[in-house]
């Protein structure tokens, strides 16, 4: 079924898909650059364009708490945030995952304070990486839209029942107008289907306790279940992405391999920078250089086996981290990718580039310079410096 071509910003696309999903409850608090999503959606609620109970709360901590309460009561519930707002949700995020509440949270990636900064990097999302939430990154508005629709199906599956962050890059995508294709309202509602909660606190026929204390003798078992749910999520993400493609013409996987098949060197990256990097790949390919990239879509669960297979033939890989884990080592994506490749018989050399913090622009020339460096890494096998801060003034 062909969709309708429209021009939308990332924020408009996310608000639009929330309208089409028509969740039972949305509790949200505005924060730049995700403010518009909340604002547009609250207008939908005020206009009666959705059946949603919209709760204007006093903080992001309350936003997620109210969303969790709604989800525990059997509602399909969503919230939206960014940056400091997400950081204020961290405490509740761990609980939402462990209570197995399938909340879908459209999120706009933005730097964390200090210094205060409203522009894009991935520090906020990376700060939540161990909270038990599925994390799906989007390159553009179209992917943000498609990923949110799919996330509902992924999260609510009985084998998964985990919450998910679906992210776009602040301003670069959230405020950038692009043409994209949207589905019909009926198509979306039919695709996500009615929500059947595993348990509802409002069901008097099945009273239960939620969130009881678990000490030395049960906590470990519940955490083991959570680990399993995250592993199970991978198969669901693949199945849902394939089915979405068959139905609407845009298939999705755990990552996108771009001109990687016969490549000798490649990048691994997340989000909007993939668009810029693809242009560089095309230009270098036109000059006969064997370059490619892997755009990771799903950071949690981390597809380490699939990624190792996809990168196994490369001689050198540059991981592009739009956050610095301040580990005294590389960024979080670098940690993961390098570890995923460890068991390969023939390993590519792997270097890290921390870039784009606080919205620092990344240009075609920056990426071209990374590919030039990778050619040298492939030729010499030398990886020092292992970690480079790309685009920072010396």
């Amino acid at each position, binding site marked *: 079924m062909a969709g309708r071509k429209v021009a939308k910003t990332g924020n408009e696309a996310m608000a639009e898909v929330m309208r089409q999903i028509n969740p039972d409850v949305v509790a949200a608090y505005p924060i730049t650059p995700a403010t518009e999503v909340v604002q547009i959606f609250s207008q939908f609620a005020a206009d009666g364009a959705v059946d949603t109970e919209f709760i204007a709360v006093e903080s992001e901590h309350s936003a997620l708490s109210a969303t969790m309460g709604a989800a525990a009561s059997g509602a399909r519930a969503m919230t939206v945030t960014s940056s400091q707002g997400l950081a204020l949700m961290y405490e509740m995020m761990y609980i939402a995952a462990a*209570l*197995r509440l399938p909340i879908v949270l459209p999120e706009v990636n933005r730097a964390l304070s200090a210094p205060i900064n409203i522009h894009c990097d991935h520090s906020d999302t990376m700060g939540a990486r161990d909270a038990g939430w599925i994390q799906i990154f989007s390159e553009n508005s179209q992917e943000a839209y498609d990923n949110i629709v799919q996330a509902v199906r992924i999260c609510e599956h009985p084998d998964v029942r985990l919450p998910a962050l679906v992210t776009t890059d602040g301003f670069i995508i959230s405020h950038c107008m692009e043409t994209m294709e949207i589905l019909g309202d009926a198509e979306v509602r039919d695709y996500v289907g009615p929500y059947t909660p595993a348990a509802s606190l409002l069901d008097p026929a099945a009273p*239960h306790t939620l*969130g*009881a204390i678990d000490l030395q003798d049960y906590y470990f078992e519940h955490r*083991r279940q959570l680990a399993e749910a995250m592993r199970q999520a991978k198969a669901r993400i693949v199945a849902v992405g394939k089915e979405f493609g068959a139905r609407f013409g845009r298939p999705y996987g755990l990552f996108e391999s771009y001109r990687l098949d016969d490549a000798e060197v490649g990048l691994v990256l997340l989000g909007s920078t993939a668009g810029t990097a693809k242009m560089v790949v095309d230009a270098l390919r036109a000059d006969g250089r064997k370059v490619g990239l892997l755009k990771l879509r799903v950071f949690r669960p981390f597809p380490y086996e699939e990624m190792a297979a996809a990168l196994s033939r490369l001689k050198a890989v540059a991981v592009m981290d739009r956050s610095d884990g301040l580990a005294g080592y590389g960024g979080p994506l670098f940690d993961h990718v390098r570890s995923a490749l460890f068991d390969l018989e023939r390993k590519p050399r792997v270097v890290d580039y921390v870039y784009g913090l606080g919205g620092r622009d990344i240009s075609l020339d920056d990426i071209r310079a990374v590919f030039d460096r990778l050619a040298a890494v492939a030729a010499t096998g030398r990886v020092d410096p292992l970690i480079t801060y790309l685009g920072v003034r010396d």
Partner: protein
Amino acid sequence: MAKETIAKPGWTALPPGGVLPAGTAHDFMTGDWRSFRPVHDPAKCTHCLICWIYCPDSSVRVSAGKFAGFDLDHCKGCGLCAAVCPPKVAAIAMIDERAARAEEK
């Protein structure tokens, strides 16, 4: 200790998300660490049931609208029942649990 002797389930057998069936606290003898025990005097009691309303552990038993004894498996000995029993009635006294048990033996 009712449930403690049963083999604990493995992670695949537990309900996901820590969801528990309601009312399971009833299966545990949660009153065994009580320091004070409520004692009821049927001669004084007017069956106003204020103690039943106030008991935080549902340990005041009622039958046919009348006080029918304490559930000492679950009573923690907090003394609220004795405190709220109207002063003119004073049908509930708190006694030392250890002394009461010694006397029972």
